[in-house]
């Protein structure tokens, strides 16, 4: 009998597992995939390491900072700042036709860019910053949490182009809702991206994951890979355990699931029909190009570049076709200020993320799927090089991950990267000892996911203390 069974070995499940194992619970994390990480994972192909998910860790704070999500999660997980070995970004940028805004880990840069390009909007920008909810207010009780971000922004900023430009990175990095964004989610992402900023370990997401797993196992936690949960057994509104895909039954006093809200309900054997219509719709492809040069040698020094090719930013599932290349994110993991003893990454890497339609990708035959990966990668790069140097003749290897890949790693319906638009901020379900953590509980991104795992573990699995 486990004290807590955790479904999913992503960031949130691992963080929750560490908390519970630290306080002497018998904990088991069950992961369907053959590897850990969920949305933020990694794989190896042709002798090279590839990351899924992580472009950057958001919410950067320098060593010694005591407030904010990163110091908080380090304390809660008993980790040192150095365990993540974070290198800061060189600088990021939002590019729309005719105008660009730079931003970095010093919040003043974005403000000065707005002062230069939209001089009459600086006061409005300051008003937006003044209206941001604190992290402490983000339990969903604040009436502003569910307001429309577009509405709040329009009250402060009169230039629609600036509103679109500010929304673009925040939606890309953490918005499950199409076209608009809950103001609470906007506040989380605004602080995470514009006020705190980006960083990355030299070794990428695998370093973070490996540290989390080592910590969890060191505390006596059990991690079972290739152990998908096929059923949560519920009796009179109370979960008694889970049944794995291979028929193994495990008993638990409580269950914490990062499988997603709808995905988790569907596992419960007292539910006959989950509302699939509420699943998220936004999925991506990511086109990864390996270059024979460092991107900076080709004149590209941006860490993350968010581009959009018209004045209006369209954040929605593609209406026609497999992908919508009008907007995208370019990330170069080379463009971080790594420590001198780390040197530079062995290859130049350009990752381009593009909006994609899960159902159309899944409907393709194997042959068509392989062919479309190449076609769509070409289209994504062709769109991106309108906003960056053309790097195509330097490509020596490439891979694409698609909504099918994301589904395989996350098991989210529709390969929905940020899960369902309606978040369950309190983490409860119709079953009295079954709780949600991760994407569908509320916070997204790596730091958000870890904070979610920690807070749900604290709230429901550690107290009341038995």
């Amino acid at each position, binding site marked *: 009998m486990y004290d807590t069974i955790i479904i999913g070995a992503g960031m949130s499940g691992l963080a929750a597992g560490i908390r519970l194992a630290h306080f*002497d619970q018998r904990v088991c994390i069950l992961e369907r995939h053959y590897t850990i990480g969920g949305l933020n994972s990694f794989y190896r192909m042709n002798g090279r390491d590839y990351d899924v998910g992580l472009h950057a860790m958001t919410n950067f704070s320098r060593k010694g900072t*005591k407030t904010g999500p990163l110091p908080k999660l380090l*304390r*809660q997980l008993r*980790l*040192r700042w150095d365990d993540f070995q974070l290198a800061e970004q060189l600088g990021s940028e939002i590019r729309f036709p005719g105008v660009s805004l730079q931003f970095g880990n010093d919040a003043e840069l974005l403000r000065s860019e707005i002062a230069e390009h939209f001089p009459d909007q600086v006061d409005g920008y300051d008003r937006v910053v003044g209206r941001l909810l604190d992290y402490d207010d983000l339990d969903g009780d604040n009436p502003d949490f569910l307001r429309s971000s577009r509405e709040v922004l329009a009250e402060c900023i009169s230039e629609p182009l600036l509103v679109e430009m500010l929304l673009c990175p925040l939606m890309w990095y953490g918005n499950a809702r199409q076209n608009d964004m809950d103001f609470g989610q906007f506040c989380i992402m605004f602080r995470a991206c514009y006020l705190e900023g980006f960083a990355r370990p030299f070794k990428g997401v695998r370093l973070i994951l490996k540290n989390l797993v080592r910590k969890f196992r060191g505390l006596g936690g059990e991690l079972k890979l290739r152990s998908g949960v096929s059923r949560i057994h519920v009796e009179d509104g109370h979960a008694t355990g889970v049944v794995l895909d291979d028929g193994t039954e495990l008993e638990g006093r409580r269950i914490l699931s990062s499988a997603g809200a709808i995905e988790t309900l569907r596992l419960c054997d007292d539910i006959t029909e989950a509302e699939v219509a509420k699943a998220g719709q936004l999925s991506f492809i990511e086109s990864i190009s390996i270059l024979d040069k460092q991107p900076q040698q080709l004149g590209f020094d941006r860490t993350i570049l968010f581009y959009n090719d018209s004045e209006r930013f369209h954040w929605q599932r593609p209406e026609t076709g497999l992908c919508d290349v009008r907007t995208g994110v370019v990330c170069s993991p080379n463009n971080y200020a790594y420590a001198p003893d780390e040197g530079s990454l062995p290859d130049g890497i350009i990752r381009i993320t593009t909006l994609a339609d899960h159902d159309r990708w899944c409907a393709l035959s194997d042959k068509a799927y392989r062919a479309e990966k190449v076609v769509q990668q070409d289209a994504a790069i062709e769109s991106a090089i309108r906003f960056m140097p053309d790097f195509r003749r330097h490509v020596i290897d490439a891979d694409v991950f698609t909504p099918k890949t994301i589904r395989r790693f996350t098991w989210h319906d529709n390969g929905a990267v940020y899960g369902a638009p309606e978040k369950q901020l309190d983490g409860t379900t119709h079953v009295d000892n079954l709780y949600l953590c991760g994407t569908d509980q509320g916070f997204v991104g790596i730091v958000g996911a870890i904070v979610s795992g*920690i807070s749900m573990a*604290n709230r429901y699995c550690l107290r009341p203390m038995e």
Partner: protein
Amino acid sequence: MTNDEIREEIIDILEDIAPDEDLGDLDDEKSFRDQLELDSMDFLDIVMELRKRHRVQVPEEDYPQLASMASTVAYLEPKMRDIVKN
């Protein structure tokens, strides 16, 4: 445990919770919150570490007693004086 030993235990717990923190110049009379920016999650951790390490129970209504080092030691003294330091 003597009061000095209780203080040492609390320092040990704080080092565990905040490994990057320099606790050498901690002022016993000033609140943890102001010196270390501890929040409610951290206070819960102090309580849970006490329970894990020494089986000392601190009911929720007593959390305010843990505001500073001096008040924490004074509060824990009757609960921990019979514990043998190992």
